[in-house]
Every structure is written in C-alpha cells, then in structure tokens.
C-alpha cells in the first residue's frame, strides 16, 4: 500500500472538490499517515479466491414494473433553492 504526501493530498482534495488550507493540510497529513499505516494491517491477510462483499447480505436485483407514478411538483422542488430561473436550477458558469 502506498503512503500519502502533501502533493497527493492536494490532488485528492481537488478530486473531492475541497479547498484545503495549508493549515488543514499540515494538520491532516500526519493524522492520515497514521490511519493509512493502520490500514496496512490488511496486507497480512490472504484474500486469494475470496469474493468481495458489497453488502452484508445477499441482495437480488430489485426491479419494478415501469409504471409512471406521481412525483413532487416543480414548485415544491424549487422551493428548496435560492438558485432558480424559469423552472430551472441556476448553476455557476460552465464555459
């Protein structure tokens, strides 16, 4: 398993859309090093031929008939946001 450093943490923060201050990076770095080195414990267990578990119990595909149902109205949904215009969400500049 690989270890973390300042440059890598900046890259992760960018991927996660977080602006971390220098003080936060300085605080997090040793903490994350400690946590990731604890995670290394897992290197010592053999998982050859073991299937991963993405749920604790077996989940079957749960599909329903494609029948239209009523949903929330536009008015209700837009009541939760300040950023709206003409029945659309108004977002930040894309281009």
């Amino acid at each position, binding site marked *: *398993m*690989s270890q*973390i450093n300042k440059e*890598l*943490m900046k890259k*992760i*923060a960018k*991927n*996660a*859309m*977080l*602006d*971390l201050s220098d003080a*936060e990076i300085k605080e*997090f770095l040793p*903490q*994350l090093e*400690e*946590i*990731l080195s*604890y*995670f290394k*414990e*897992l290197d010592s*267990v053999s*998982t050859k031929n*073991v*299937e*991963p*578990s*993405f*749920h*604790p*119990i077996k*989940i079957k*595909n*749960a599909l*329903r008939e494609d029948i239209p149902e009523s949903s*929330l109205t536009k008015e*209700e*949904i837009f*009541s*939760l*946001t*300040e*950023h709206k215009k003409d029945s659309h*969400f*108004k*977002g*930040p*500049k*894309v281009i």
Partner: protein
Amino acid sequence: MLKQHINSVKNDEVNILESTYKVLEKIKKLNSEYNCFNTISEDLAIQQAKNLRKDKGIKKKKIPGLFVSVKDCLCVKNVESTAGSRILKGYKPLFNATAIQKLIDEGAIIIGKTAQDEFGFGGFSTNVGLGYQIPKNPIDKEHSCGGSSGGSACITQLADFPHISVAESTGGSIANPASFCGVYGLTPSYGLISRYGLIDYGNSLDKIGLMSKTPELMQEFLDIMSGKDLKDSTSLHSQPTKTKIKKVALVSDLMDGVEPEIEESTLNYLKDYDYEEIKLPITKKYSLAVYYILALSEASTNLAKYCGLRYGQHEKLEGNFTEYFSKTRSKHFGKEAKRRIIIGTFARMAGFRDAYYMKAAKVRTLIINEYKETLKKYEIIATPTMPIFPPKFKEIEKLTPLQNYLMDILTAGPNLAGLPHLNIPLKTKLPSGILLTADHFNENLLTSNY
C-alpha cells in the same frame, strides 16, 4: 409505562394535546441544559396531537400518542433535517423517511430531531457540524453521550414521559451512545428497515434502529417500521429462523483492554445463560480497518452531492462550476467530514482502489463468514458494548483521529456483518452495556430476552 400510556390515549383517559404541550416545555428546558436536540418540532407535534384528538380510528392505531424523537439524519417532512451538518442548514424535506411515515401512520408524535456527529462521523458526538452544540451526558455533563446518535441516547435517558428514539447506526452509532447513557439500543439487521429518507453515511452499512429506556415496545416498533419498500432496493421482507436462546458465545479475545468493572459486570450478566468462550480472530484483527476503509469510501461518494445548488446552504453564484462547488463545500463541511472525504476519496482512487477498497471488501467477506459460522453453533454472540465508560470531554480532546476510530473495536464487527445487536445497560457505577448479537433477522431473540 409505554403500553399503559398508549391505552390511556386510545381510551381518551388522557388529553394528549395537554400532554404534548407539557412534553414540549420539558424538552425545551432539558435541551437548554443538555443540547440533545438540533430542532424541536413543536408545530408538528401539536398538529399531530390535535389530529389524534379528532381521529375516530384511534383505537386501531398501534402507538397513538407515543412521543418519538428522531435522529437528525432522518428526513421529517417540513422539519429541518440536516444530519448535524451546516451544509444542510435550512433543508426542510418535502417527504418523510419511510420508517418515520410508518410511525406517524400509527399515531406517533414527533417531538424533534436529535443531535449527532456531523453525518454520523464520530463516536462521542463531539464532531458536530459547524455552529451545532455538543450534547452532554445526562449522568454527568462533563462526559460525552457517545455517538454518533448521542442526542437520541441523551433524551432517552432524560425522558420521564413515554418516549422512544429513532436512531441510526453505521459502525456502532446506536450501541455506543446507548451504552454511554445507560439505555437500550437496538440496531436491526441490515435491510430490515427501509433506508429511504435517511441522509446516507455508508449505504452498505447504514441501519435505522431504536433507543428506549425499557425493552417494552421494541419488537412492536420494529414490526411497524420494517418491511420491503419499493423506494429502497436493499430493503427486505424476512422471517426469523430461531425462536429460543440455547447457547451464548462470549468473545474472549475481544475482552482485552476492557475496563475491569465492565468485564466483571458482563460476566455477571451471562451467569444465567449457558455460555462458552470463543474467539473471533479475523474480526478482532481486521474489522476496524475494513470498516473505516469501506465506510469512508462510501461516505466520500455520498457527500459528493452537497454542493450548494438544490437545497441546504447556498453561496453567491461566482466563479466556475468547480470553484463554486469547492467553495461551498469547504466553507460548510466540518473538519472530520473533510478528513473522511479525503481518506475515502484516496481509498477509491485509481492506483489505490485494489489495495484499499477492494481488499477491504474481500476481508469483509471473511468477517461475515466468521460470524455466520459462529452463529451456526450459538444463538447469541456477546461482548461488552464499549471497552470504556463515557469519557470526559477533556479526555476526548487528547485523542488522535485514529485513537477515536479504535473505540469502535467491539461494534464494527456486527455492523460490517449487518447483524442485529442490542445494547443492554449493565449495573456499573458509570453507564456501560453488554452487546448481544444475533443472526440476520432474528431480532426476536433480542427483544424477547427478558
């Protein structure tokens, strides 16, 4: 006490509206002292009580007039629901979580949203979101309530009125505060109760459950809230496979580091059972690493949707997409949320995914197998719930994030395996508890065990 109250309400022997006003006054006072609620849903509670007074079908309802508090991470219609995070401040859901709707349909009165670690990220309710208050332990205000459902445990211990709290556990967030506040805390099997309307932490781990001062109505509550829900594809309808506790397994290798008084009290509790000591070596060695890798990976994807656009906190629309979203998230997420997003994002990144996320998912299989094999021979697996008594806030401040995570050593296993588990208060000087774990969908063994 709970059944008696329900019958009095059904028979109109008690004026539920007057009782509701009294309860609201009481919890406002308690809240000013203990910070157990993020929001008190006064208008909703009064309306529900008024509706009950007029309801001609009240005798057919299962829990009319029972006062229910709800962890802040569960959506309650028109009541601010934030999972204890400032990024969701102001968010009033347009719908009820399925579990809450079912309780309301049976006559529950919802009194408020309880305090918690932001998004469930903690074991002491000290990682509350920016601007939120930390709940205090009812036994001694200098001590933690535990977490992440700390507010639920706090009000459950304090309430001298008929009350149950709906809480949620990802890695121990019901059992831990129940132990620290000295109340019953039941986490059901994964999938038993629909997660629709739950503000997610880790989707493969989150379970809605209960806290109560008595085990009296736990099974009735589960029966109301459980069942297949088309809105949650992981919800299940399932029946118990066992009816009686014959043998109990005490996990001896998880007793290392447990406070001597808690250990002694645990053994004392088990005296009445036919129990044997067993070991769970894979769970002991790997469950915490597996839990934190998986939970944080899932959390980092779940938190990606909070961006200040559709609900919750908004900022002035400035800059491009990335700049706006990053600014909003950085401003409103607390420190532990940021830390967990970073770790979870790292564990899923190209180049690291196989070493962390996939490896953890495979070791999770080994842990589940270890539990399932044990539960073929025993109906119940027992450990203490927490290795320590509720710590003082001053002591918690000194812990590193990893030391915080290690406190989940006894609760991570049953949560990873999605097994139902119950904290039962022990008779110790400060609050503590024993944790009984049963096989999937055998909650009946836990709720009838008195």
